[in-house]
Structures are given as structure tokens and as C-alpha cells.
């Protein structure tokens, strides 16, 4: 255990935790916006898988990480249109429609992978700041700073984007007209409608933002890991949905939840590689975030109220 509590190992673990938190955070922030508008999207994991494959395949073909992320975004957007049509316009039950999206994403991403790639091929991972073409040199001295360097500067651009999106999401939800509309249609769509807010349009946009972020989250995951395989996400998208409840629909607390998941995963892997705990204990430790989430839900359920119209379709009759 002592070899874990050295500064360098602790810092490295924390830095890894921040990196691991990114896909959770991106997907959960998107889901937060959707749920604030009253729409539960349980298909996040499926969208992430498709985004992950899309991003991975794009990097294989073009070598461009930016294009990979953009393809992830595009895939998320496309699935978002389908999901919005099904849930907002056809009033389909949201939980089950999400399972449909999940199964489609799970199967279709695997199908495309087997058909187009076959055996897992590693790609170039997302570069950290100091490895960025052109400007990398500027960051090199920063990375070398003790403690602060690895924690704050040894990351790829998507990490910074994800964490910048936390205040951005809060701002969007709390300070803009669109955000006000989102919260209004999530709380009381009838009232919002009578005030001239288009419930369908607001929810459509909220869903599109959410699923685009899920697509980006997936692409970020595969580009961070530099690989794709069957069921790459292994449930990250489902956990992202739970994090929204965990974080009581507030971006800051959602971020805290994502960091918790990142930290537990990073610690577990570190302990295992240092042989501090056997594989068996590592499996037990992997339950911790899920159990913590359940306990948090028990504590929060009676204290925090979600959007009143969550999962309720709206029509004017």
C-alpha cells in the first residue's frame, strides 16, 4: 500500500481519473440538458458506441482526430433526430425507446466494426497538449512542473472541452432564453405552451444537443483509448444517465459524479498494476461506484425533485 501513497503515484492516479471522467462527463452533460427539457434518453450508450466506432474508423481512414470527433458529433445528431421524432412527435415511451436505440447502437457498431475493420487495429491516440502539432512546444515546460503539470497540462483538448462545458451548460440552462425555455418545458409544458414557447421545438433542440454530446463522448472514448472493440463503452452511457440523477440535474454535481467514477476506476487500475490488491478485490472495488450511486439516489430521492415533466410526452389536448 505504501507505494501507492507517494506523490508521483497519487498525482498520476488523479491525472488518469480526470481523463477517465471525460466520456462520462460529456455524455452526462448532454443528458442533463435533455432531461431538463423533460426527455429521458436511455439510448446514450448506443449513441456512444456508434460515435466511438465512427470516430475510430474516421481516424483510421483520414488520420485526423478533429474529423473523428466531428463524425462522432454527426452520428449523435443523426440518432438524435430519430430519437426526437420517436419520443417528441410520436410520443413513444421514452425508457423503452432508449433501449431500442441502445440495442441498435450495440449491434450496428459491432456489425460495422466486423465488416469494415475486422481485427482491432490501434490508432494514434488523442495527443496531449505538449504533443499538439505546431503549438506543442509552448506546453512542454508546463507539463514538467511538479504536481500541477501532470494534473492540469498533461491532457488532450477534449478533456479541457469537457470541463469547460460544465460552466457553459450551467450558463446555457440558467442564463439564456433557450435555457429558460428548456427548464419551463421540463417543469410545466402546458404553462410554457400557453406562454407561446414551442414545447416540441425546445425539446427537439435539447435532445439534439444531448445526443450530439453523447456521440462526441463516444468518439472521445475510442480516440482516448486508441482502439475500438465490441461493446467498447461497457455501460458508460447508462452510468452517464444515472449521473444526471446523482448530480440532481446540476452540471456541477454531475461533474463531481463523473470525477468520482473516474477516480474509482483509476485507483482500481493503479492498485491492480501495483499488485496492491488481487484481481478479485479489484472486481469487488468495481462495484463501488454503482453501490455509491444507489445509496446517493436513496439519499437524494426524498430531497431533490427532478424536472416535473420528465418522461411525460406533451400534446395540446
Amino acid at each position, binding site marked *: 500500500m505504501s507505494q501507492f501513497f507517494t506523490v508521483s503515484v497519487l498525482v498520476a492516479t488523479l491525472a488518469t481519473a480526470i481523463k477517465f471522467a471525460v466520456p462520462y462527463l460529456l455524455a452526462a452533460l448532454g443528458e442533463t440538458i435533455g432531461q431538463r427539457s423533460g426527455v429521458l434518453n436511455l439510448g446514450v450508450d448506443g449513441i456512444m458506441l456508434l460515435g466511438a466506432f465512427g470516430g475510430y474508423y474516421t481516424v483510421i481512414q483520414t488520420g485526423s482526430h478533429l474529423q473523428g470527433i466531428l463524425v462522432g458529433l454527426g452520428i449523435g445528431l443523426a440518432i438524435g433526430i430519430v430519437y426526437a421524432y420517436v419520443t417528441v412527435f*410520436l410520443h413513444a*415511451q421514452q425508457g423503452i425507446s432508449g433501449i431500442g*436505440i441502445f*440495442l441498435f447502437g450495440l*449491434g450496428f457498431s*459491432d456489425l460495422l466494426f466486423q*465488416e469494415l475493420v475486422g481485427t482491432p487495429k490501434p490508432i494514434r491516440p488523442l495527443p496531449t497538449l505538449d504533443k499538439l502539432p505546431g503549438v506543442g512546444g509552448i506546453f512542454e515546460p508546463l507539463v514538467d512542473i511538479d504536481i500541477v503539470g501532470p494534473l492540469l497540462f498533461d491532457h488532450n483538448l477534449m478533456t479541457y472541452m469537457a470541463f469547460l462545458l460544465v460552466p457553459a451548460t450551467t450558463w446555457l440552462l440558467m442564463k439564456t432564453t433557450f435555457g429558460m425555455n428548456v427548464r419551463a418545458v421540463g417543469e410545466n409544458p402546458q404553462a410554457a405552451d400557453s406562454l407561446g414557447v414551442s414545447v416540441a421545438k425546445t425539446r427537439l433542440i435539447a435532445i439534439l444537443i444531448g445526443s450530439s454530446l453523447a456521440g462526441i463522448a463516444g468518439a472521445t472514448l475510442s480516440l482516448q483509448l486508441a482502439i475500438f472493440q465490441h461493446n467498447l463503452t461497457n455501460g458508460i452511457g447508462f452510468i452517464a444517465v444515472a449521473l444526471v440523477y446523482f448530480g440532481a440535474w446540476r452540471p456541477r454535481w454531475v461533474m463531481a459524479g463523473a470525477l468520482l467514477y473516474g477516480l474509482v476506476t483509476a485507483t482500481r487500475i493503479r492498485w491492480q498494476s501495483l499488485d496492491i490488491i488481487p484481481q*478479485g478485490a479489484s*472486481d469487488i472495488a468495481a462495484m463501488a461506484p454503482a453501490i455509491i450511486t444507489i445509496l446517493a439516489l436513496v439519499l437524494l430521492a426524498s430531497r431533490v425533485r427532478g424536472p416535473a415533466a420528465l418522461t411525460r410526452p406533451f400534446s395540446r389536448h
Partner: protein
Amino acid sequence: MKRLTGGIVPLGAALVAFLFGAIMILTLGASPVEGLGAMIDGAFGTGDRVAATAVRATPLLLVGAGITIAFRASVINIGGEGQIIAGALLSTALALAIPDTPKVLLIPLVILAGIVGGGLWGAIPGVLKAYASVNEILSTIMLNIVAIQLMNYLLRGPMIDPVEVGTSRIPQTERLTDNAAFPTLIEGTRLHLGVPMAVLAAIIVYVILFRTPLGFRLRAVGHNPDAARAAGISVERNIVSALSMSGALCGLAGVVLVFGSESLRLVTDGGSAGFTGSAGFNGIVAALFGGLHPLWTIPSSFLFGSLLTGATELQRELQIPNALAIALNGLIVLFVVSSDKVRNWLDLRLDRSMSTPRSETAEAAVPLETDDLEEALEETT
């Protein structure tokens, strides 16, 4: 009339989904006609294949029957995967503990253990929902993760095959005792005891849901909890019952997957799909497709079982990855769930054409904003 359109819409949805499947096969450079041929051949080509299809359908039917109970009580059970694993773990542990028990005793015992294991795993989200207002979608998802890790832990540690300890450490149990193996019903095929057992389970679920006071209470709670409460029905207790029964049937599916398998052991690939074949999710598809009716879930599960065995053949003959089946399942869910509004619409038109003109008011009275689950929950018998 409702019954008629109720049947047409899922079939229409399936046809559209299969059309998408045909387009996918075409895009992958194969002939959809050949593809369909290969699938039908793979699923029904020989008696042995029909038996294999029935075996593949068995966990879907058990999970699906459980889903009908939960959904009719308006409880969404996404925890099938975890409940399957819980049932499998408890029954496997029992078979490992008392391998020398005679067959007539051990088979009922492992079945019971599976029911208890899955039932308890389902009761947890039930209690959390009923008494702590925890959303069951979230708690079941989390409990899936816990169950998977518990399985990984047990199969890598306490329950690992002693032979594997010193060697490759494949996370699996030893080959379980033959005393617990489900007997084959027709020699030369894989048709085992689990198949008729699942059909019987679906019939029992039907009887419970529609012919007993318990079923009436469950459906009343699902239809309108406030009214049920006013009528003196305990909503909390029925939520727990619904999820426990749903979990128990999933647990039974876990038993079938272990003791009906050829390898006769529990093995993990680190996730859940390696063991369950995603039956916890695919069972939802089968139940939805069967209109959330336990009896219709029987042919529906058989259909989805044939999709799975057919896809295996598709991969063998035309090199089309069998992941196609899962993708199609997803599409079918989307089509079936979103077609509820189409069904409302159809019912409206048909009702109007059948009855005297009370059109304007009739249209206003049609519950267009009714929750789809509620719609599906309407009495169909």
C-alpha cells in the same frame, strides 16, 4: 377491433425493420433473398435447428414473461441482465455445494435457487422504488453492474474451476454435476427441459395476471396507482411483488442458461452479454412485440429466437456479422414503441367507421396524450 389492429401494428413494425435489415444486407454486398433463405434455413432447416431455435428462445420467453408482469404494473425493469446473473450464481453455487444430491431432487432445487436469486435481486429495486422513491430504471441498471462484478469476482476467485487456478485462469466454474443437468427431451436434439418449463411459466404468468386477485391488483396499480390506493390496494407492496416476480423469472432464465447449456458451467467474459447473450434486453423486445401479453410472448420469443439462430447461419454462409440481429432488435423496439400512436390513430378510424357518427367528440375523447405504457396496459383479454 382493437385486438385486430393490435396484432397488425407489431407485424407491420417488424416488416419495416426487416426491410431495413434487407437494405443492410444489400449494402454489405449480399443478396437479401439469399440472406433471408439462410436465416430461415438456419432457424428451421432441420429438426435439430428448430430445437436449437426453441432453446435460444427460452431465456427470451422467461425474461419476456417477467417483463409483462413488471410493465403491466407500470414498473420498468431494465435489470434483466443482473437478475439472470443472480439466479445463475445462486443455483450454480448450490450445485457446487451439493453435487451428490440425486437428480430428482437437485434439479428442482437449482430451479428454486435460481428463482430465489433472481427474485431477491429484483426485490431490491422494488423496495427502493416503493419505500425510498428511487427510480427503478436507474437502480436496475446499477444492480446490473453490481451483479456482473459479483460474477467476475466469484468466477475468478471462490467459484473458479480448480483446474484453472494454476493454469490459464479462465474465469469459469468446473463442469457442474450431471445430476443438475437439464434432461434432453428428444434424443439427438438440444431440446431440453427448460423449453416446456418456460412455456409453462408464461402460462402461469398469464393465469396470475388475469385470473387471480394478485394479478388484478398488479394491473390496477399499473393502470392508476391513486385509484388503486383509494380502493385499499397497497401500491408499495405490489411494486415490490411485480419486480420480485419479474426478477424471479429472469433468475429462472439464468438457471436455464447454465443447466441447459452443453458446457454445463458458468463462465464470464467480464461483461454480461458473454453469459446472457443480452437476453435481459432481448426479452424486453420479445415482450413488447407480444403486446405485453404473456401468451403472445411465447410465439414472439420463438420468432426472436429464430432471428438469433438465423443470424448465426447468416454469418456462416454469407459472412454477414450476426450483430445484425441485435441491431434489428433495436429497430423493432423503436418501431413497435412508436407505432402505439399509429395504433391509436388506426383504432380511432376503425372505431369511427364501425359506429354511429359521434365523430368530433369521439376524436376529442381519444386519449392521445395517454402514456404509451398505459395504452399497452389496457385490458386485451
